[in-house]
Protein backbone atom coordinates (compact mmCIF):
# COMPACT_ATOMS: atom_id res chain seq x y z
CA UNK A 1 0.00 0.00 0.00
CA UNK A 2 1.31 3.46 -0.95
CA UNK A 3 2.38 5.69 1.94
CA UNK A 4 0.37 8.89 2.17
CA UNK A 5 2.28 12.14 1.80
CA UNK A 6 1.73 15.13 4.05
CA UNK A 7 -0.75 16.90 1.78
CA UNK A 8 -2.76 13.72 1.36
CA UNK A 9 -3.01 13.33 5.14
CA UNK A 10 -4.04 16.99 5.55
CA UNK A 11 -6.67 16.49 2.85
CA UNK A 12 -7.96 13.34 4.55
CA UNK A 13 -8.27 15.17 7.88
CA UNK A 14 -10.11 18.11 6.29
CA UNK A 15 -12.37 15.80 4.27
CA UNK A 16 -13.25 13.84 7.40
CA UNK A 17 -14.36 17.07 9.09
CA UNK A 18 -16.22 18.26 5.97
CA UNK A 19 -18.04 14.94 5.59
CA UNK A 20 -19.28 15.21 9.17
CA UNK A 21 -21.00 18.49 8.36
CA UNK A 22 -17.97 20.67 9.09
CA UNK A 23 -17.69 19.63 12.73
CA UNK A 24 -16.16 16.49 14.24
CA UNK A 25 -15.30 14.95 17.61
CA UNK A 26 -11.57 14.17 18.20
CA UNK A 27 -12.30 10.43 18.61
CA UNK A 28 -14.10 10.30 15.25
CA UNK A 29 -11.32 12.23 13.59
CA UNK A 30 -8.71 9.87 15.04
CA UNK A 31 -10.59 6.93 13.55
CA UNK A 32 -11.21 8.61 10.18
CA UNK A 33 -7.71 10.04 9.70
CA UNK A 34 -6.01 6.71 10.42
CA UNK A 35 -3.22 8.34 12.43
CA UNK A 36 -1.78 7.92 15.90
CA UNK A 37 -3.13 10.38 18.49
CA UNK A 38 0.24 12.14 18.68
CA UNK A 39 0.51 12.55 14.90
CA UNK A 40 -3.07 13.71 14.58
CA UNK A 41 -2.55 16.42 17.21
CA UNK A 42 0.62 17.56 15.41
CA UNK A 43 -1.31 17.92 12.16
CA UNK A 44 -4.24 19.63 13.86
CA UNK A 45 -2.05 22.22 15.58
CA UNK A 46 -0.48 23.03 12.21
CA UNK A 47 -3.90 23.29 10.59
CA UNK A 48 -5.09 25.58 13.38
CA UNK A 49 -2.00 27.75 12.93
CA UNK A 50 -2.88 28.06 9.23
CA UNK A 51 -6.47 28.87 10.12
CA UNK A 52 -7.87 25.86 8.27
CA UNK A 53 -9.31 24.28 11.38
CA UNK A 54 -10.56 25.71 14.67
CA UNK A 55 -11.27 24.13 18.04
CA UNK A 56 -14.48 24.83 19.91
CA UNK A 57 -16.37 23.59 22.93
CA UNK A 58 -19.88 22.30 22.42
CA UNK A 59 -21.76 21.37 25.58
CA UNK A 60 -18.45 20.80 27.33
CA UNK A 61 -17.11 18.55 24.58
CA UNK A 62 -14.14 19.40 22.38
CA UNK A 63 -14.95 19.65 18.65
CA UNK A 64 -12.92 20.53 15.57
CA UNK A 65 -14.51 22.66 12.89
CA UNK A 66 -13.32 23.37 9.37
CA UNK A 67 -12.82 27.01 8.30
CA UNK A 68 -13.05 28.63 4.87
CA UNK A 69 -9.27 28.17 4.44
CA UNK A 70 -9.79 24.46 4.94
CA UNK A 71 -12.53 24.33 2.31
CA UNK A 72 -10.23 26.24 -0.07
CA UNK A 73 -7.47 23.69 0.55
CA UNK A 74 -9.79 20.76 -0.28
CA UNK A 75 -10.89 22.46 -3.52
CA UNK A 76 -7.33 23.26 -4.60
CA UNK A 77 -6.02 19.82 -3.65
CA UNK A 78 -8.77 18.15 -5.70
CA UNK A 79 -7.84 20.20 -8.78
CA UNK A 80 -4.13 19.47 -8.40
CA UNK A 81 -4.81 15.75 -7.87
CA UNK A 82 -6.92 15.71 -11.03
CA UNK A 83 -4.17 17.59 -12.92
CA UNK A 84 -1.55 15.18 -11.63
CA UNK A 85 -3.64 12.12 -12.57
CA UNK A 86 -4.44 13.51 -16.03
CA UNK A 87 -0.76 13.99 -16.86
CA UNK A 88 0.51 11.01 -14.88
CA UNK A 89 2.77 13.21 -12.77
Amino acid at each position, binding site marked *: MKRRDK*LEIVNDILLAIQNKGGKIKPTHLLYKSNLSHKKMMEYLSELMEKNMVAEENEKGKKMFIINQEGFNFIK*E*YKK*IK*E*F*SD*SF*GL
Partner: protein
Amino acid sequence: MVHFVCGPLWFLNADLIIEFISLLIALLIGLFSHRASKFTSERKYFYFAMAFYLIAASFGIKMLATWLSCSQFKQVVFQSITIIQYNLNSVQTIYALGSFLHRFFMLTGLLILTTLCLKIRTNKTRLLLLFFIFISTWFSRETYFIFHLIAAFLLLYISLSFYANHYRKQTKNSFLVALAFALMFISQLIFIFVLLDPTLYVAGVIVQLLGFLSLLLTYLLIGKK
Protein backbone atom coordinates in the same frame (compact mmCIF):
# COMPACT_ATOMS: atom_id res chain seq x y z
CA MET B 1 20.82 34.05 -46.97
CA VAL B 2 18.41 32.71 -44.36
CA HIS B 3 15.16 31.17 -45.55
CA PHE B 4 12.17 30.63 -43.35
CA VAL B 5 9.22 28.49 -44.39
CA CYS B 6 5.92 30.15 -43.47
CA GLY B 7 3.54 28.02 -45.53
CA PRO B 8 1.16 29.49 -48.10
CA LEU B 9 0.87 33.29 -48.18
CA TRP B 10 -2.92 33.23 -47.64
CA PHE B 11 -2.37 31.32 -44.40
CA LEU B 12 0.02 33.80 -42.73
CA ASN B 13 -2.54 35.67 -40.60
CA ALA B 14 -4.38 32.51 -39.61
CA ASP B 15 -1.01 30.97 -38.70
CA LEU B 16 -0.22 33.86 -36.36
CA ILE B 17 -3.64 33.60 -34.69
CA ILE B 18 -3.31 29.82 -34.27
CA GLU B 19 0.16 30.19 -32.77
CA PHE B 20 -1.14 32.83 -30.38
CA ILE B 21 -3.91 30.45 -29.25
CA SER B 22 -1.34 27.67 -28.73
CA LEU B 23 0.86 30.10 -26.78
CA LEU B 24 -2.03 31.03 -24.47
CA ILE B 25 -2.94 27.39 -23.84
CA ALA B 26 0.69 26.47 -23.07
CA LEU B 27 0.87 29.46 -20.72
CA LEU B 28 -2.34 28.43 -18.92
CA ILE B 29 -1.04 24.89 -18.34
CA GLY B 30 2.33 26.31 -17.20
CA LEU B 31 0.68 28.72 -14.75
CA PHE B 32 -1.52 25.99 -13.29
CA SER B 33 1.47 23.71 -12.81
CA HIS B 34 3.42 26.57 -11.25
CA ARG B 35 0.56 27.09 -8.79
CA ALA B 36 0.64 23.35 -8.04
CA SER B 37 4.40 23.51 -7.41
CA LYS B 38 3.89 26.31 -4.87
CA PHE B 39 1.00 24.46 -3.23
CA THR B 40 2.75 21.11 -2.94
CA SER B 41 6.43 22.21 -2.96
CA GLU B 42 7.08 19.33 -5.39
CA ARG B 43 9.77 19.86 -8.01
CA LYS B 44 7.97 17.83 -10.69
CA TYR B 45 5.26 20.50 -11.02
CA PHE B 46 7.92 23.20 -11.29
CA TYR B 47 9.66 21.35 -14.15
CA PHE B 48 6.33 20.72 -15.82
CA ALA B 49 5.54 24.44 -15.61
CA MET B 50 8.98 25.28 -17.03
CA ALA B 51 8.37 22.94 -19.97
CA PHE B 52 5.13 24.70 -20.88
CA TYR B 53 6.62 28.17 -20.31
CA LEU B 54 9.39 27.26 -22.77
CA ILE B 55 6.86 25.99 -25.32
CA ALA B 56 4.86 29.22 -24.91
CA ALA B 57 8.05 31.29 -25.31
CA SER B 58 8.94 29.30 -28.40
CA PHE B 59 5.60 30.17 -30.00
CA GLY B 60 6.04 33.81 -28.98
CA ILE B 61 9.47 34.02 -30.60
CA LYS B 62 8.23 32.32 -33.76
CA MET B 63 5.28 34.70 -34.00
CA LEU B 64 7.55 37.69 -33.56
CA ALA B 65 10.00 36.42 -36.15
CA THR B 66 7.22 35.65 -38.63
CA TRP B 67 5.58 39.02 -38.08
CA LEU B 68 8.85 40.94 -38.41
CA SER B 69 9.95 39.08 -41.49
CA CYS B 70 6.59 39.19 -43.21
CA SER B 71 5.95 42.86 -42.53
CA GLN B 72 9.36 44.29 -43.29
CA PHE B 73 11.08 42.14 -45.82
CA LYS B 74 10.73 41.04 -49.37
CA GLN B 75 8.55 37.99 -49.82
CA VAL B 76 9.16 35.55 -52.57
CA VAL B 77 6.45 33.05 -53.39
CA PHE B 78 8.08 29.91 -54.62
CA GLN B 79 5.84 26.98 -55.56
CA SER B 80 3.18 28.59 -53.33
CA ILE B 81 5.47 28.45 -50.26
CA THR B 82 6.28 31.84 -48.83
CA ILE B 83 10.02 32.25 -48.52
CA ILE B 84 11.30 35.39 -46.91
CA GLN B 85 14.62 36.74 -48.07
CA TYR B 86 16.89 38.73 -45.83
CA ASN B 87 19.30 41.04 -47.49
CA LEU B 88 20.75 42.85 -44.50
CA ASN B 89 23.38 41.01 -42.55
CA SER B 90 22.30 42.38 -39.16
CA VAL B 91 18.66 41.47 -39.75
CA GLN B 92 19.77 38.09 -40.99
CA THR B 93 21.72 37.54 -37.76
CA ILE B 94 18.81 38.65 -35.57
CA TYR B 95 16.44 36.43 -37.47
CA ALA B 96 18.80 33.45 -37.32
CA LEU B 97 19.03 33.93 -33.55
CA GLY B 98 15.24 34.14 -33.24
CA SER B 99 14.85 31.03 -35.32
CA PHE B 100 17.41 29.19 -33.19
CA LEU B 101 15.72 30.30 -29.94
CA HIS B 102 12.32 29.14 -31.21
CA ARG B 103 13.70 25.68 -32.00
CA PHE B 104 15.83 25.45 -28.87
CA PHE B 105 13.01 26.53 -26.49
CA MET B 106 10.51 24.16 -28.09
CA LEU B 107 12.87 21.19 -27.99
CA THR B 108 14.02 21.97 -24.43
CA GLY B 109 10.35 22.17 -23.33
CA LEU B 110 9.61 18.83 -24.98
CA LEU B 111 12.81 17.37 -23.52
CA ILE B 112 11.74 18.36 -19.98
CA LEU B 113 8.36 16.69 -20.57
CA THR B 114 10.14 13.58 -21.84
CA THR B 115 12.43 13.41 -18.79
CA LEU B 116 9.36 13.74 -16.54
CA CYS B 117 7.51 11.01 -18.47
CA LEU B 118 10.52 8.68 -18.44
CA LYS B 119 11.19 9.52 -14.76
CA ILE B 120 14.75 10.64 -15.51
CA ARG B 121 15.78 12.27 -12.26
CA THR B 122 19.53 12.72 -12.54
CA ASN B 123 20.75 16.16 -13.58
CA LYS B 124 23.76 14.63 -15.39
CA THR B 125 21.46 12.77 -17.80
CA ARG B 126 19.25 15.84 -18.24
CA LEU B 127 22.28 18.00 -19.06
CA LEU B 128 23.61 15.43 -21.49
CA LEU B 129 20.30 15.35 -23.37
CA LEU B 130 20.13 19.16 -23.34
CA PHE B 131 23.64 19.29 -24.79
CA PHE B 132 22.59 17.05 -27.69
CA ILE B 133 19.54 19.23 -28.31
CA PHE B 134 21.77 22.31 -28.39
CA ILE B 135 24.29 20.71 -30.76
CA SER B 136 21.62 19.45 -33.13
CA THR B 137 19.77 22.77 -33.28
CA TRP B 138 22.83 25.04 -33.49
CA PHE B 139 25.18 23.14 -35.77
CA SER B 140 22.80 21.27 -38.01
CA ARG B 141 22.73 22.30 -41.67
CA GLU B 142 19.24 20.89 -42.17
CA THR B 143 17.77 22.71 -39.18
CA TYR B 144 14.16 22.52 -40.36
CA PHE B 145 14.15 18.72 -40.77
CA ILE B 146 16.29 18.04 -37.72
CA PHE B 147 14.04 20.21 -35.54
CA HIS B 148 10.82 18.50 -36.59
CA LEU B 149 12.43 15.07 -36.50
CA ILE B 150 13.66 15.52 -32.91
CA ALA B 151 10.33 17.11 -31.88
CA ALA B 152 8.44 14.16 -33.42
CA PHE B 153 10.70 11.67 -31.66
CA LEU B 154 10.30 13.34 -28.26
CA LEU B 155 6.54 13.66 -28.76
CA LEU B 156 6.35 9.96 -29.61
CA TYR B 157 7.89 9.12 -26.22
CA ILE B 158 5.61 11.61 -24.45
CA SER B 159 2.50 10.32 -26.25
CA LEU B 160 3.28 6.69 -25.40
CA SER B 161 3.80 7.65 -21.77
CA PHE B 162 0.49 9.54 -21.62
CA TYR B 163 -1.25 6.65 -23.37
CA ALA B 164 0.12 4.28 -20.70
CA ASN B 165 -1.15 6.71 -18.05
CA HIS B 166 -4.59 6.71 -19.68
CA TYR B 167 -4.55 2.90 -19.80
CA ARG B 168 -4.01 2.91 -16.01
CA LYS B 169 -6.37 5.76 -15.07
CA GLN B 170 -9.13 5.38 -17.71
CA THR B 171 -10.46 8.92 -17.18
CA LYS B 172 -11.74 11.45 -19.70
CA ASN B 173 -8.93 13.85 -18.84
CA SER B 174 -6.15 11.28 -19.19
CA PHE B 175 -7.63 10.39 -22.60
CA LEU B 176 -7.66 14.03 -23.69
CA VAL B 177 -4.02 14.47 -22.64
CA ALA B 178 -2.95 11.34 -24.52
CA LEU B 179 -4.94 12.51 -27.56
CA ALA B 180 -3.40 16.01 -27.37
CA PHE B 181 0.17 14.74 -27.51
CA ALA B 182 -0.64 12.11 -30.15
CA LEU B 183 -2.01 14.92 -32.34
CA MET B 184 1.11 17.02 -31.70
CA PHE B 185 3.25 14.04 -32.69
CA ILE B 186 1.27 13.63 -35.94
CA SER B 187 1.61 17.36 -36.66
CA GLN B 188 5.41 17.11 -36.38
CA LEU B 189 5.41 14.18 -38.82
CA ILE B 190 3.36 16.30 -41.23
CA PHE B 191 5.78 19.26 -40.88
CA ILE B 192 8.67 17.02 -41.95
CA PHE B 193 7.10 16.62 -45.39
CA VAL B 194 6.09 20.27 -45.94
CA LEU B 195 8.65 20.91 -48.69
CA LEU B 196 7.11 18.11 -50.73
CA ASP B 197 3.66 19.68 -50.59
CA PRO B 198 3.20 23.19 -49.11
CA THR B 199 -0.45 22.63 -48.18
CA LEU B 200 0.80 20.08 -45.67
CA TYR B 201 1.98 23.05 -43.58
CA VAL B 202 -1.64 24.13 -43.12
CA ALA B 203 -2.63 20.56 -42.20
CA GLY B 204 0.26 20.37 -39.72
CA VAL B 205 -0.68 23.65 -38.02
CA ILE B 206 -4.36 22.63 -37.78
CA VAL B 207 -3.54 19.20 -36.32
CA GLN B 208 -1.19 20.89 -33.83
CA LEU B 209 -3.95 23.34 -32.89
CA LEU B 210 -6.35 20.43 -32.29
CA GLY B 211 -3.75 18.99 -29.93
CA PHE B 212 -3.55 22.23 -27.96
CA LEU B 213 -7.36 22.54 -27.92
CA SER B 214 -7.52 19.07 -26.41
CA LEU B 215 -5.14 20.32 -23.68
CA LEU B 216 -7.36 23.38 -23.19
CA LEU B 217 -10.40 21.14 -22.75
CA THR B 218 -8.50 19.13 -20.12
CA TYR B 219 -7.58 22.37 -18.34
CA LEU B 220 -11.20 23.55 -18.38
CA LEU B 221 -12.50 20.21 -17.09
CA ILE B 222 -9.96 20.29 -14.23
CA GLY B 223 -10.97 23.90 -13.44
CA LYS B 224 -14.63 22.92 -13.28
CA LYS B 225 -14.02 20.45 -10.44
